């Protein structure tokens, strides 16, 4: 099963490699990993998307907790939560494709943030499947480049991960 694991970790040099090293050393899956400092600059927050049986996910959270610099670990997918990912996609936009791409982008609530006479860069935010659907909805031969941030997640309502 797919899990969304949130980690609060000391914002120190090497902390990221402790986490990524743990996953590779123990053969755990990482689908995506995002990390950036929080409002408290001494802490970073990671969102890790991983897949595995319940036993494996239990081990992953326990092993993450064992890392000395990890402050807190939560499996967001255990309850209601929100996931968002940002994608920037550069497409060839010429002739009648220009209008069509604009139209599809609007449907997905994307924003065109860079325009040249032959290209658009579209910014799109959503959960992973929305971004996948957008990529599927446009002619693949028009896609020049994509970049995705990976998923960031947060609990709904009163579920709060902080110190």
């Amino acid at each position, binding site marked *: 099963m797919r899990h969304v694991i949130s980690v609060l970790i000391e914002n120190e*040099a*090497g902390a990221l*490699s402790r986490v990524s090293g743990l996953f590779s050393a123990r053969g755990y899956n990482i689908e995506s990993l995002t990390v950036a400092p929080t409002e408290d600059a001494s802490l970073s927050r990671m969102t890790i998307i991983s897949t595995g049986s319940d036993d494996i996910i239990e081990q992953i959270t326990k*092993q993450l907790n064992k890392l*000395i*610099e*990890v*402050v807190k670990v939560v499996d967001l997918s255990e309850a209601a939560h929100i996931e968002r990912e940002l994608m920037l996609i550069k497409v060839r936009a010429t002739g009648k494709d220009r209008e069509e791409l604009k139209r599809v982008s609007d449907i997905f609530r994307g924003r065109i943030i860079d325009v040249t006479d032959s290209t658009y860069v579209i910014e799109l935010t959503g959960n992973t499947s929305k971004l996948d659907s957008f990529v599927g909805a446009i002619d693949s031969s028009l896609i020049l480049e994509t970049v995705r941030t990976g998923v960031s997640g947060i609990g709904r309502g009163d579920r709060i991960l902080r110190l």
Partner: protein
Amino acid sequence: MLLSGAEIVVRCLAEEKVEYVFGYPGGAVLYLYDELFKQDKVRHVLVRHEQAAIHAADAYSRSTDRVGVALVTSGPGVTNAITGIATAHMDSIPMVIISGQVPTAAIGQDAFQECDTVGITRPCVKHNFLVKDAKDIAVTIKKAFFIANTGRPGPVLVDIPKDITIAKAEYEYPKTVSMRSYNPITKGHQGQIKKAVQLLLEAKRPMIYAGGGVILSDSSEKLTKLVRTLGAPCTNTLMGLGAYPATDKQFVGMLGMHGNYEANMAMQYCDVLIAIGARFDDRVIGNPADFARVARKIIHIDIDPSSISKRVKVDVPIVGNLSDVLDDILRLLEASNERPDQEALGEWWKQIDEWRRRDCLKYKQSDEIIKPQFVIEKLWEVTKGDAFVTSDVGQHQMWAAQYYKFDKPRRWLNSGGLGTMGVGIPYGMGVQLAHPGSPVAVVTGEGSVQMNIQELSTCKQYRLPLKICSLNNRYLGMVRQWQEIIHGNRYSESYMDSLPDFAKLAEAYGHVGLRIEKPGDVEGALREAFKRKNDLVFLDFQVDPTENVYPMVMGGKGLTDMLLSSEDL
């Protein structure tokens, strides 16, 4: 007061009451060595290879309840130390390793003797630090000792660039240290403890399975009290030998791949199993699916939550310091009016005694050739079961574990997790320094002993009178055994040709060497060796090269699927 980084390091070590630092100098640690030279609180032991420094510090820790300390230089100093660090890490040994690093400005420049120490050691330490400012040294070293010795213990490395050892900073050693991200649990969950006690009282076939955690947490007495209170059988893992007295009638021997028949059978067929500071590893329970085939309730006490339900599902997990949790369990047992069902317990013991009658450790004695098991039996007799015994890795390690009956904790030192050949002599060094005047035996083989034989020189320098008992069978015995059983007698590269004359080699290092060829000479040689209190004696026992370790559970098999002798093949 402004002190140099190097002075600060040495003062911190003195503050931590470090008796010995095991190490080897080099370019990046010259200032540290200069400060060591100028004081006499912290004594330095100069090894002949950095691996041995780590092993010796590790053994110092294993045989006491203190943190072992080692000091190595950058680059190859660190890479040589890796095997030692990984060995300590696998067995959860509290250690602090200080490593030199190239100057801060040279880091990342592929400087001479540079390596990414924090990166290379990351997977085999509990934690590591790179100090980038002299003012951070004291607090970092305080944290290192704190982390190493709390929670599930382990090695912690502090990497210090050369310029930081020269730079000056205000020195004050912090009295305490707290980290928001590191708060190890000590007390167990009271509700879970109550459940555990209830299960233990209701058990008809209880079994106590205790591991190295009991020794690390100094809980042997509490374990012994629990075993006696419950009247249950107790087994120890390889790492746990000595946690419960081996000569006691409630002890059913070591369990696992080369464990006792009765221990493995009782593990499999008990109805309530309590695991205490043990982790159900592959060499202990064999195939986990086969282990789970029989229904039983499992209580698991461990300081490390990740050890629980890792390989075996448990019913009552208790995370906490064993010493505290055992206190709680003993208190509840005492307060309870219930007692275990004596009749059921009687039946259980009858069954265990029947298993015991298989006498799984019997072997065929010979008048012609020395049996390795016989050497260990005699070693136990001659030392009255009271020596510190270190071993290397292989057949001799298993025979030492099986035939030397350890009655006290911290007397048996071996590399259980990583299985590192070459630990024997350096372990002996660390133990002998921690316990001057106590008899220390190194049980080894002609293969393992050559992996750190250079340390005979260190032993001479520091007058460490180890009794090295080498069970020389001219083969990498455990490899040969598997090749015989699994690979159709194709002894690929397991024969040790061109062996040195070990007795003469020992003499060349300034020690006493004896070569023993006849079974009748074994006891006399051991007595002679232990009589020489001030000499290191290398006993080169020429043992039966065809002898195998039994019982044996083959890889992937269930715990009760045991070969008891070569006739079972």
